[in-house]
């Protein structure tokens, strides 16, 4: 049984300096052996992991991996067939009130109630959590932070997609939840807004909130997250610190072009992973494949290198390798 309340859960939990973040010795999220089936599709196959308080955690996976199902179970929108989830020690089913008060979820879709202006939506949402007028200054602060102050009386229908996204973020934060889940918050937003949202979530994280981010933009996860889980086909494929994940596959990439746009020698074809406009990308295993040997092979074939550069694999390379290996198998 998951029992007990985190210390200070009732204390204000805000971004401003006059209120310190709450930390207690339990996980922000405890996910234990979650199974979920939709008809013939097994969406989650016994997923288990923990997210510590104060973490900026990335949850990655291709479409249909089970990320949104998992988040929906955490949020109480979907019921698991088996397994248990707790938010700050509160079971999401048996102790749903405390669990949901500790949690703010920014949904993936741009959903809104068309009857009310932004300020009313936020105050109503706070009300559902039992927060009254005392929460209004915080709501004003959120509007300010998210650059929505001049839209407070606007109806959601009048707002752009980016603005709607900001309102949804504000709605998730009206009750000052210690744990915040952002389900693809930057999907379909322009670069400027994406950067603004990054800054905002970084600030939330800095002020003590535990953040869980799902995203399709892997550079976003690489930039923001401390630890990353990769889900694929309903199973947990990786759960590592960002650095450890990047080192999980010890290879480097060598990009080169040959004089006269010559073809790559036969001896190097097995290492070729990509070719774009006469530039070859070779995957070299660290400690086994030496760059000097590659250059020797080119010279032996009577060819000359025109340009060469190396790079370490990005999260995207690792993600693609992991998920495509799954597909191949």
């Amino acid at each position, binding site marked *: 049984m998951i029992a007990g309340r985190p210390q200070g859960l*009732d204390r204000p939990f805000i971004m401003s300096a006059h209120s310190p973040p709450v930390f207690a010795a339990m996980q922000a999220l405890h996910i234990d052996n979650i199974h979920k089936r*939709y008809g013939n599709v097994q969406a989650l196959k016994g997923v288990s992991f923990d997210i510590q308080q104060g973490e900026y955690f990335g949850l990655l996976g291709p479409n249909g991996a089970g990320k949104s199902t998992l988040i929906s179970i955490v*949020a*109480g*929108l*979907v*019921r698991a067939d088996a397994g248990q989830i707790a938010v700050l020690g509160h079971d999401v089913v048996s102790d*749903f*009130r*405390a669990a*949901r*008060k500790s*949690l703010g*979820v920014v*949904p993936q*879709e741009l*959903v*809104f*109630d*068309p*009857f*009310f202006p932004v300020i009313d939506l936020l105050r*109503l*949402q706070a*009300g*559902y*959590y*039992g*927060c*009254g007028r005392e929460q209004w200054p915080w709501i004003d602060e959120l509007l300010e932070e998210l650059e929505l102050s001049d839209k407070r009386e606007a109806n959601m229908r009048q707002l752009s997609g980016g603005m709607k996204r900001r309102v949804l973020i504000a*709605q998730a934060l009206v009750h000052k939840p210690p744990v915040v889940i952002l389900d693809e918050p930057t999907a379909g937003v322009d670069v400027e807004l994406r950067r603004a949202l990054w800054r905002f979530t970084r600030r939330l994280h800095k002020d003590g909130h535990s953040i869980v981010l799902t995203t399709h933009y892997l550079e976003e996860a690489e930039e923001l997250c401390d630890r990353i889980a990769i889900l694929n086909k309903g199973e947990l494929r990786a759960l590592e610190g960002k650095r450890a994940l990047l080192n999980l596959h010890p290879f480097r990439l060598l990009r080169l072009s040959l004089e006269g746009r010559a073809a790559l020698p036969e001896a190097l074809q097995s290492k070729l992973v990509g070719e774009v406009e006469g530039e070859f990308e070779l995957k070299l295993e660290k400690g086994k494949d030496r760059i000097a040997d590659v250059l020797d092979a080119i010279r032996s074939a009577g060819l000359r290198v025109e340009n060469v550069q190396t790079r370490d694999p990005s999260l995207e390379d690792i993600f693609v390798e992991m998920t495509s290996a799954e597909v191949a198998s």
Partner: protein
Amino acid sequence: MIAAFNSYGAWTLLRKEVRRFMKVVGQTVLAPMITSVLYLLVFDQVMRDRVEVYDGVAYTAFLIPGLMMMSVIQNAFANTSSSLIQSKIMGNLVLLLMTPLSSLEMFLAFVGAALLRGVLVAAGVYVVAIFFVPLPLEAAWAALLLLVLSSGCLAVLGIIAGIVADKFEHLAAFQNFFIMPLSFLSGVFYSIHSLPPFWREVSHYNPFFYMIDGFRYGFFGVGDASPLLSVAVVSGFFLALSVICLAMLHTGYKLRP
């Protein structure tokens, strides 16, 4: 400390639901009033010298409680069902389902708002109707009790329909093939004593008949059935629907798959 009952949350949802229908008051309150008055004008012209259902009660007067209750039935149902189906289709229902509101709190808030709309519409029809014909109030307790219970029944039925329906079409079918026939065939425009024996017997199995007959008893002190029986049947209907509805909300049927 987290309270056992999130009263402020439930109160907020109730206020929101009331504000939602008040924002379109012309459509949700005034339009049903006008419809009822039109019924009244037409039937009054056609029937007033031909029918006297109860001794000393003009047909127009007889008609008014029936029309009031018919408006209550349709509007209490529409309030909860349309709110839920709109939220489902717009997708914003998730913003409510993620909150720490329990099934009972949501139930009470939705029913409370629909009940208020039902009472407002009934009161509006009453205020307009008494310009046409004086209306006694012989047993106010019965009228008030049946008004609240009937409004509650249809509010709960609206929640059930809103949960089950996946699109507006499903809701319209529920309204057209269930609510409308049962309300029209429940004695709004006639006394069931004027029906052939078979249909008179069948009417006794229609809970809407007890809503209208008991409510009408409140005005004239006479009815086709005992007012206590009407209160008992409608209370039982309300309790049965409430149990089904709360079970659906609690198990997350079609809401939390």
